[in-house]
């Protein structure tokens, strides 16, 4: 496609937001960065301009303006803020793609904030009924963006959503960021993806604990 798509990244200054922004700079996109802290956002912009000379990137004046200008909106914000942000952008997102990365996990990482048979992403879709909400990148760690290819294999990045065209569009975006897009199902599949990531976080924590206790070697099972 020759026409540039405009993408707003809300929470661009965070771990995921900045990794995604940098990974998309190589693509045919115009990026609108949204951060809460102007200094942090300017620092990110300067880094991107230094490292990616062809990047088409700018700082958006606010979340609503960025979402109005964009056709794709990436919410790289903590799960607990999605509701408030959805309210701020509701009027300008009809028919737009909203990518939610959220992992609805409590701060102590010990349990999930969502009930069984529900997901944070389906809740977001209910708040924004006329937008095309897509779950993506939730099982990808921010650090993975540094090396999305290991031994010649690209990491899989799972996508769930209800709109076929939107899923195709997000698949292209994920390919551009270096990962291998895998469409797993409609939006209800985000329940599985969110729980899968919860499990991965638990395993990660176990590894860290084991590492602490036994120097470098650790056991993951049991």
């Amino acid at each position, binding site marked *: 496609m*020759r*026409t*540039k798509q405009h993408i707003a990244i809300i929470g661009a200054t965070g771990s995921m937001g900045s990794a995604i922004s940098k990974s998309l700079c190589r693509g045919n996109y115009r990026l609108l960065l949204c951060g809460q802290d102007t200094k942090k956002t300017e620092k990110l912009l300067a880094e991107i301009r230094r490292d990616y000379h062809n990047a088409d990137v700018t700082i958006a004046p606010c979340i609503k*303006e960025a979402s109005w200008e964009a056709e794709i909106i990436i919410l790289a914000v903590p799960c607990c803020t999605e509701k408030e942000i959805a309210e701020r952008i509701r*009027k*300008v997102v009809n*028919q737009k793609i909203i990518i939610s990365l959220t992992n609805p996990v409590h701060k102590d990482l010990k349990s999930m904030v969502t009930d069984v048979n529900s997901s944070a992403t389906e809740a977001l879709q209910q708040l924004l*009924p006329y937008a095309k909400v897509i779950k993506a990148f939730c099982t990808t760690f921010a650090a993975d963006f540094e090396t999305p290819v290991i031994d010649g294999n690209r990491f899989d990045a799972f996508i769930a959503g209800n709109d076929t065209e939107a899923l195709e569009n997000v698949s292209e975006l994920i390919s551009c960021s270096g990962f291998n897009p895998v469409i797993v199902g409609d939006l209800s599949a985000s329940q599985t993806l969110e729980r899968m990531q919860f499990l991965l976080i638990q395993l990660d924590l176990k590894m860290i604990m084991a590492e602490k206790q036994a120097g470098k070697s650790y056991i993951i099972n049991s």
Partner: protein
Amino acid sequence: MYRVYFENFRQKVALTEEEQELIQAHLMTRKIRKKLYILREKDICKFVVFVEKGLLKSYSTGENGAEHIIQFAPENQFILDIYSFLTGEQATYNIQAVEDSELIIISKSSHETLLKKSHKYETFVRILVTDAYIELQQRLNANISLHPDELYIAFMHKYAHIAQRVPQHMIASYLGLAPETLSRIRRKIAGRNS
């Protein structure tokens, strides 16, 4: 955000609040900065654009890279590459913002859904297409029958509001004249009027 669109709609077809809500759910609202593109040639035009505020133009490029302006779309106008939209073939037009603009975008899938769901929308589209056809006939007539001087005068008469907002070279491109030819015509007319 959707005001101009629905005012235009209601001038042609009456709408209840519920009907407006149903249609609005399928319309995307977007801002676009001056000089940026909403469509580049060779992509497929999968949408119709309505200008709420600002000004867009569509153009094709000649062999030497010259811009041939097809249409100016100020507020309250629709713009698209209808050939590409209807056939799914590559677009031959570029659509670019001449000013910072606010747009309503109706995707092809939304358009098709609305045609099925809303009788009022279908009527609205039929009226738009008819009006566009008349406009096309008038432009064709003018282009084949008028002398360049008359073409320019007719443009200034009909589109004075656009002429104030765009540089001369764009008007020349729209009229199919070389910029120098247009300058000559303008001098001639100014001389006649003074």
